[in-house]
């Protein structure tokens, strides 16, 4: 099917958000573009049960200017690889507490495979190519989250 030109919605914000409220806006929009399938992925702050008193907060640093460009570029790449409707990427920065949503991607396509693959691709690229850094605070101190080799390796799936 011919879907409408993909519309890319990139949001980088410190405010908390409700993934459901975004999905409520995204879905009719995707439907009007001819989508038969909508995927959302939401990342949540997980507690650290091993740390004394657990995770007190997470602080996310980012690179204003580059962040928006990198996310837009990743979304554009997804739209050129698959036949997509609208694409949404939202990522928070600043202070977060356990169980809060960190980020969300939403994709839409005529048939489900495209939206699934695109959401998976967006997550893989976002993890290793968008300039965000997480720092975890516990009663024991603070530590920057280390990148995993597996995150970089995941990109080879898409080459």
């Amino acid at each position: 099917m011919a879907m409408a030109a993909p519309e890319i919605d990139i949001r980088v914000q410190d405010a908390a958000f409700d993934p459901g409220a975004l999905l409520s806006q995204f879905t009719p929009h995707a439907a009007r573009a001819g989508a038969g399938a909508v995927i959302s992925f939401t990342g949540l702050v997980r507690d650290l049960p091993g740390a004394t008193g657990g995770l007190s907060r997470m602080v996310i640093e980012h690179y204003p200017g580059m962040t928006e460009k990198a996310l837009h570029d990743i979304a554009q790449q997804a739209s050129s690889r698959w036949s997509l409707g609208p694409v949404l990427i939202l990522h928070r920065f600043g202070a977060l507490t356990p169980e809060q949503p960190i980020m969300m991607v939403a994709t839409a396509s005529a048939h489900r495979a495209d939206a699934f693959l695109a959401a998976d691709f967006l997550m893989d690229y976002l993890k290793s190519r968008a300039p965000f850094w997480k720092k975890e605070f516990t009663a024991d101190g603070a530590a920057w989250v280390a990148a995993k080799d597996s995150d970089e390796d995941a990109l080879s799936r898409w080459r």
Partner: protein
Amino acid sequence: MDVLYFAWVRERIGLPKERVDTSAATVMDLVRELSAREDRYALAFSDLSALRVAVDQELSDFDAPLGGVREVAFFPPMTGG
């Protein structure tokens, strides 16, 4: 040019951004120049395999040329998502 630091690179060097007057031809030349300044720079740049660099807000390499560049940023591998 503006040089920016993020995450633990920012913490080690002790500032998020500075203006650097340099004639460095490549990112690697700039790293050597900064490392020669003070220990905190040398420490931050001691293991380049643990660092990433962006040139004018695009991910780049340490051998990238700096001609006409306005902004270079150093940071650890990203951990978003």
